[in-house]
């Protein structure tokens, strides 16, 4: 018999009663131990509702959620608590405590001995650059620093499942990278991770599989590579016209066919086989120094996300070309 999936979600449906809103509708997915699974989608797509059901904070209207084979049911919080570390969006628990206390005591509440919890806390504070803030009260830190403390509180105790709702919100780019590294390490050591994020470009590198939610339903699912394959026949050209240039932005846009203009920046999607030829033509006709930037961009997960989340490339192209 094969091992149980970390999470198995079948036909999950959540309807809020007042006002009547279907937040999740027929959601299915499986997350295996050691796998990182991303939940992407626009605001209001139903991501947070979904993860709150995964940790027992909301009761599904219908469907089935299993954690390592056991159904999650009301009153089963202890099972979730021993197995799942959850980083919610925006709440501030233990704000009155000092940074080191908040992380250590969370570890001890998860069952670590004091010495283990303290050792893990020291390591996490070092990795998250929190060591100098160890004795500061959490609620007096900046928003980004508080988020780092919450990430530390989530990782302490080394639970087998991590659920993180926007872990890198308010955090600067260098520390974001550190967080992604830490999370990737945890997955390599066998933890299952479910990640809700808008930071698609960065998350792409740590996610094994992705589900894109749109209006409560899974609109697309697969590995980042599989999802991007649908756009592989296209390449995006991005051109920025120099400030003092005589080149007319609208003329560049016309040479790209359907395109989008944002100030001096023009971008458009063209067939991949024509990309180099079109770029050369634009650069030649503009002349030396007329363009500040000109490049070809292969489709990213963010492009897939934007496409599925109601911003379809073709729609955008049609709108811009009118």
């Amino acid at each position, binding site marked *: 018999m094969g091992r149980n999936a970390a999470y198995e979600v079948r036909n999950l449906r959540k309807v809020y009663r007042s006002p009547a809103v279907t937040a999740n509708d027929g959601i299915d997915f499986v997350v295996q131990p050691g796998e990182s699974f991303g939940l992407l989608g626009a605001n209001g797509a139903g991501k947070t509702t979904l993860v709150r059901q995964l940790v027992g904070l909301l009761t599904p209207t219908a469907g089935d959620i299993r954690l390592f084979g056991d159904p999650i049911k009301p*009153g089963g919080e202890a099972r979730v608590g021993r197995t799942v570390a*959850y980083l919610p969006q925006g709440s501030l628990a233990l704000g009155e405590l000092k940074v080191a206390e908040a992380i250590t*005591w969370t570890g001890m509440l998860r069952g670590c001995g004091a010495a283990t919890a303290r050792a893990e806390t020291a390591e996490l504070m070092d990795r998250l650059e929190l060591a100098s803030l160890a004795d500061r009260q959490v609620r007096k830190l900046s928003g980004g620093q508080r988020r780092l403390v919450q990430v530390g509180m989530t990782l302490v105790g080394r639970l087998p499942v991590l659920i993180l709702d926007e872990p890198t919100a308010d955090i600067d780019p260098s520390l974001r990278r550190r967080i992604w590294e830490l999370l990737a390490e945890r997955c390599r050591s066998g933890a299952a991770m479910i990640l809700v994020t808008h930071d698609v470009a960065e998350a792409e590198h740590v996610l094994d599989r992705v589900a894109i939610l749109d209006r409560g339903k899974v609109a697309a699912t697969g590995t980042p590579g599989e999802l991007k394959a649908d756009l592989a026949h296209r390449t995006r050209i991005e051109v920025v016209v120099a400030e003092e240039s005589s080149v007319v932005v609208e003329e560049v846009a016309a040479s790209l066919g359907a395109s989008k203009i944002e100030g001096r920046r023009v971008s458009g999607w063209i067939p991949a086989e024509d990309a180099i030829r079109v770029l050369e033509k634009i650069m030649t006709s503009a002349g030396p120094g007329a363009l500040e930037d000109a490049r070809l961009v292969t489709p990213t997960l963010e492009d897939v996300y934007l496409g599925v989340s109601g911003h379809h490339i073709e729609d955008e192209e049609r709108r811009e070309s009118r």
Partner: protein
Amino acid sequence: MSLASGRVERFKVLLQIQMSRLRTSWRPYLIVSSVMPLGIAVLMRAVMEPEQVQEFGRQIVAGSVVLAIAMTAVVMLAQRMASLKESRAIDYYSTLPVSRAAVVAAVLLSFAVFSLPGTIIVVVLGAALFDLSLVALWVVVPVWALGSFALAGIGLFIGFGAPDEQLAGMYSNLAMMAVLFLGILPEDKLPDWISPLRLVLPSTYAVEALKPGLNGEIAASLAGDLAVLALFGAILFWAVRGPLWPKAE
């Protein structure tokens, strides 16, 4: 780590968290839980005729002591729980392997620790004001402990039921008014229709448990009153495992 020792260790951590939270703000809690009840006792003593002191002294001091306990178990607990619910910090505890009863007990105990000195101050100074006995002062301790847990049911009901912290503060102060009037005023001074309400309030049994002790007596009814307080506490801890805890929608 065995299951039982694991629970004890986790409860100690929960208590540490709550006590640490109060390390910078314990003074106001201590002052509020002693000054207001003591002020009421002083006020009542000041407006009383000398012959009334003997008649009503025990009721007033016992009522003031219970008011000191209720300040933490009703008002402060209600506001704290409403704040945890409003800020969604309650989710933090809900997703840890700790019981709801342990979370509530830790919050309550952290507040109650600060109400104990206030309680003793009120009983000692109140007894001096009304010329009462302190021979059975020890009775205050079980009444404080069981009364805190029994009255906490009201605090939790308000804290988890109120939409926000401000309304929880207002509702809990209304509840305090009930505790104040039904505890301090003698039963024969209250309208008949209020008597049934006295029976369902834990504060009534706390006051009745304290009164004989202020005459230096240990009444046979003490065990019964303490048992009723324990029963209210037991109901609270049953309720907090289900009906009282904020619902997963």
